[in-house]
């Protein structure tokens, strides 16, 4: 089993931690060893949030150990807020064939005079990665489900339908069911499926 390294970045309140849990559980269902790293507390109140998820072999020479991903070693970077990609890029590299999925959504930074257009951000990020994709996730889930916080799960559905990571669709769905509160499961499933049928 080859190791697979995912960075998820966003802003406090966007569901980054939930997304991390969903992926970690799904990886167990698919027989991988899993390590994640996240931060809680002060920095999470509207600040930048970045989590690491690694999965790979349980034993042997390819076993994974560290909960943190080394710079330039991410296989996939999901940015639920576009400006956050300007921080997460350090984990990407052309050698690692890092895939960048960037939500076409900006949350302004307090005290910053400039709000950069997403297209400028994408142009810059392309220097670090061969595959940079922008997804209007927030816009779509707001239009169709009236809940912006589902953007992350929508991106997960999108990633699954395009086979961008080695996790099975049914494992992720099972994981969503086990992770989100019961009353929100159907809504999350809708957001996940929304991308599948695009």
């Amino acid at each position, binding site marked *: 089993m080859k190791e697979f390294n995912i960075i998820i970045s966003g*802003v*406090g309140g966007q569901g980054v931690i939930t997304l*991390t*849990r969903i992926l*970690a*559980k799904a990886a*167990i269902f698919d027989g991988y*060893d*899993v*390590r*994640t*790293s*996240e*931060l*809680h*507390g*002060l*920095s*999470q*109140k*509207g*600040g*930048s949030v970045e989590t690491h998820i690694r999965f790979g072999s349980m034993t042997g*020479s*390819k*076993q*994974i*150990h*560290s*909960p*943190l*991903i*080394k*710079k*330039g070693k991410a296989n996939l970077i999901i940015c639920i807020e576009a*400006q956050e990609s*300007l*921080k997460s*890029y*350090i984990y990407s*590299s052309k*050698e690692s064939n890092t895939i960048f999925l960037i939500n076409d959504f900006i949350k302004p*930074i*307090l*005290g*910053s005079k*400039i709000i*950069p257009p997403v297209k*400028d*951000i994408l*142009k*810059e990020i392309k*220097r*670090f990665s061969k595959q940079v994709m922008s997804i209007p996730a927030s816009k779509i889930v707001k239009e169709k489900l009236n809940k912006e916080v589902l953007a992350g799960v929508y991106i997960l559905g999108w990633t699954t339908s395009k086979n961008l990571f080695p996790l099975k669709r049914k494992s992720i769905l099972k994981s969503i069911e*086990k992770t989100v509160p*019961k009353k929100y499961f159907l809504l999350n499933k809708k957001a996940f499926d929304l991308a599948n049928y695009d």
Partner: protein
Amino acid sequence: MTEEIISNKVGEKIILLGNEGIVRGALESGVQFVSAYPGTPSSEVGNTFWRIAKKVGVYFEFSTNEKVALEAGAGAAFSGLRTLVSMKHFGLNVASDFFMPLVYSGVKGGMVILVADDPSCWSSAQSEEDTRAFASLSHIPILEPSTPQECKDFTKLAFDLSEKFQIPIMIRETTRVALQGGIVKLGKIVKGKRKGKFIKDPHQFSTMPPRVLEMKKELLEKIEKIKKQISEKSLINKIYGNNKSEIGIVTSSVSFLYVMEALKYLNLNIPVLKLGFFHPLPDKKIKGFINKFKKILVVEELEPHLEKEIKVLAKDINLKLQIFGKDLLSETGELRPEQVLKAVAEFSNKKLKIKPVLKIKNPKLKIPKRSPQFCPGCPYWLVFNALKKAVDPKKVIFGGEIGCYMLAFYPPFHFQDYLFCMGSSVGVAHGIKKSSNKQKLISFVGDSSFFHSGIPALLNAVHNKSNPLIIIMDNQTTAMTGHQPNPGTNKTSMGNSVEGAKIEDIVKACGVKNLKIINPIKQKEFIKAVKDSLNNKINEVSVIIARRPCIYI
């Protein structure tokens, strides 16, 4: 759906955070009494028990502060119950006055103290501490897990050791252990069924001189026994790789994981000694390990505690041994896998091709740091907006403290001229006002902080007659760490209804006459109260209780 952490499916593999591993380990050890004060990165231990305590039949409380939590836990352990007490590193500073003699007296029921350090200060103002230093100060045995599975296993071991040697055992985590997610294999939850009974034994529990010196001697003997009988033989001090080598690595905690990752990446086979015991160290095992090498690398976060110990041990057996550690790794901030990789490569003379780091070129895209801020609708917006109108911020000193209101340090307010620990804003305010009475000063303290350690400072200011304006930011919960109850809330951690303590009653009892209680939504009233208090000529403490609940409760 039963929560996974209390699942009875023995052998099932689930994802837990390190902190949740501690909780599960305690449940599998038959824990009956748990106390905590919340603080990142330790909070999930208390939060989880807060959720599950009733279901699993364990007593749990968020105590008023860490010292009280430790005292309560000790009382339960003196009465024979298995007890867990949880706090962040600064919490141990608060608790240390009680902590030191507790290690002397020891316990009856097993007692585990969980302390979580925060290298890089991700969620910790005030200082970057390495709690391992408490080993030399107090002699307490300290275990250091690396993964969530080890958090569970070490907790179980700690309970057994604690009971066998009648001594509290500390488990020390760092952020990347406490908030690391990984697979944990579930064991059986053991329901603690002991009946607590305190059996009088002043010989053990009264630390009076000259008996206290005997106790110290007995403590040192206990540690020596734990060293010889347990630490030297324990599998948690483990050597990985036994190939012939001239060099070796000694490491612990999360650093071990970075070392293994570096060796894998560099395709190296260097023997590694991973120490699960920080105190007492297995001297013989370490000597046996380092004896055969020309040089070793010690990989540890923060202070060079292991490195210093090993340098002492090496003098006995291997004078020529070269010992590397903090000369290759930083003493400030957490270690990162790439730093350890670089150090291991340099230490083993392995060439590491590091590509120059690309940087963002477009200057328009160099975005500023996204500072944390008050939540939309937070009552503290109202308080600070009112203050902006009430005073000239340049002419007023703002005393900050630990709690959500410390976010006033960031834009748009910048209302914080000093910040130290819980309970300190009022104490410092008093000293400033005594030294420089003409300067105007507003000291902030939250409801939970006030109960935690603000009250003695208020009493001191009143009794010794200084005149700061103290604004008690009463959002009626411990908001920053996850809305835990405190003595002011109307429910205990077990969910029972109680009458919460009234801050105004305490303030009045401290002797404060100039007291106002205002909901900050009434901006005009609030602004007037601030102006009146700052401009009055009476040489007395003024208190405004800004009372409006956090929007999330």
